[in-house]
């Protein structure tokens, strides 16, 4: 089973031909984009609240970050634990999303950097194979977020 991959939780993300995408929703009534997919639109001024699925490319800018110096409790499974960076990323859809950072030197992370979504293995499990989560990595393509 070790050659199979799965995501850390169902409904979080997909891996397509163009790379990882976040599973989001958009409200037909007010246009609000939500991640993760909610039960209902939360906008108090919206009465339609009809949600459609949408995938997010996950390109944005780093709004803030921190370094987790202590290993989180056991619900968080990771192989080869070491301190890691968590980021808060501003997406052009009007959402700020938290996620682990990948490919950064922990000492030189800067707010405002452009980042893109990637999919990485958190841990390997005999039943589930390689278990993946999303992370944000430096976006060296130079393309400005839409």
């Amino acid at each position, binding site marked *: 089973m070790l050659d199979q991959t799965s995501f850390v939780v169902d*409904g979080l993300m997909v891996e397509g031909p163009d790379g990882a995408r976040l599973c989001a929703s958009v409200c037909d009534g007010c246009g609000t984009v939500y991640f993760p997919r909610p039960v209902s639109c939360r906008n108090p001024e919206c009465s339609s609240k009809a949600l459609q699925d949408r995938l997010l490319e996950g390109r944005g800018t780093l709004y803030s970050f*921190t370094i987790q110096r202590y290993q989180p409790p056991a619900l968080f499974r990771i192989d080869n634990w070491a301190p890691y960076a968590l980021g808060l990323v501003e997406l052009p859809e009007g959402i700020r999303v938290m996620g682990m950072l990948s490919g950064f030197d922990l000492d030189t992370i800067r707010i405002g950097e452009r980042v893109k979504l990637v999919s990485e293995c958190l841990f390997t499990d005999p039943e589930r194979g390689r278990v993946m*989560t999303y992370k944000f990595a430096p976006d060296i393509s130079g393309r400005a977020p839409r």
Partner: protein
Amino acid sequence: MKPVYVLGVGAHPWGKWPQKPQVTLALDALRAAFADAGLGWQQVEGLVAASSRFEGGMGWGLHANEIVQTVSEQGIPCINVGGACAAGAIAVQTAWAMIASGQHEAVAVVGAERMPKGFIPRPPGSQDDIGDSDYLRWVAMGATNPAYWALEAQRRFHEFGTTPETLALAAVLMRNNAAGNPYARYREPLTVAEVLASPMVSDPLHLLQICPVSDGAAALLLGSERFLDRVARDPVQVAGCAVGSGQFGDPARRIPTIANNVLPGVAHTSEVVGAVQRALGMAGIGPGDVDILEMADNSAWHLLAWPELFGIVEPGQSDWMLAHGRYARDGDLALNPGGGFLSFGEATTAQAVLQVCELTWQLRGEAEGRQVSGAKVGLSAVLGLGANGGSVVLKR
């Protein structure tokens, strides 16, 4: 509506009390509050409990019922409120309304908590799927509570140029304030160097800038004018109290969610800001009239951010206020003069009740070892899981 007064306050010191069940802590605090008022169970017409989800309450959050069944079976209404760390403020609001409506003359409020060791566990029965944010945040990224506060603090460094030293100074102020407070758990003075030498937990927050957890209990007796002539001191009035929930578009990084929609013009930490604004409005005063702010300092960052969010100072001004002693007990705004959560350790549901006790002691001039001189207006502010905000304004 009828005016409501604080007739009596009492607390059990914060600490770790493995030999004392939660109901015993609650009874100690209630006994102290009744003695302070010079009244007893015979005069109490209702009990509102800020209910724990960790212990007691017959497993159903029935803490008020458990207390009266333990100590005085007198048929009074027992109301049990949830609200996580804001439950104490919601309990005060409930008791206030019971008296202000004219339905009752004296109602007691209690919050008592013994906190589990280590990280707060997820409640039983939660789903292990993407619909539960408190599952998602752990499995997808391992986001601890301090990580949420650290993201806010790091952003503040970027926006306002807050320095590690200033952030450390906030923790130092809390310990200085706690030094003479017999109810506080951590009373040893600290230096900026000691705070910065404590282990880094989640950059830029060090261990001594994050509130630990404790056991503790606090109680109040609120009453109508009828009891004023029986209370031998200057009355402290509940001039305002309010509860709020979150606004769509709030930019705060709310535990345990992993993402939020951000809209321009929506207040940061809107559940608390909304409650504070309503409580101040009810009292007919503005943020500049507040002498003492008792606020939930889950981290040192909160001490800088919240006075700005409430409009007491301008955005970014807290650094200067702190560095120039203006948040000290003899400053313009006494910030957590009893030491705050950083010096107590959080005993979740009891904490907001304790805030009102501390404001009462301060306004009466009875805050031995930590007194703010001449204070006339006190404001409390607390945030609870589930976008719960609560605020109380006391006046003498």
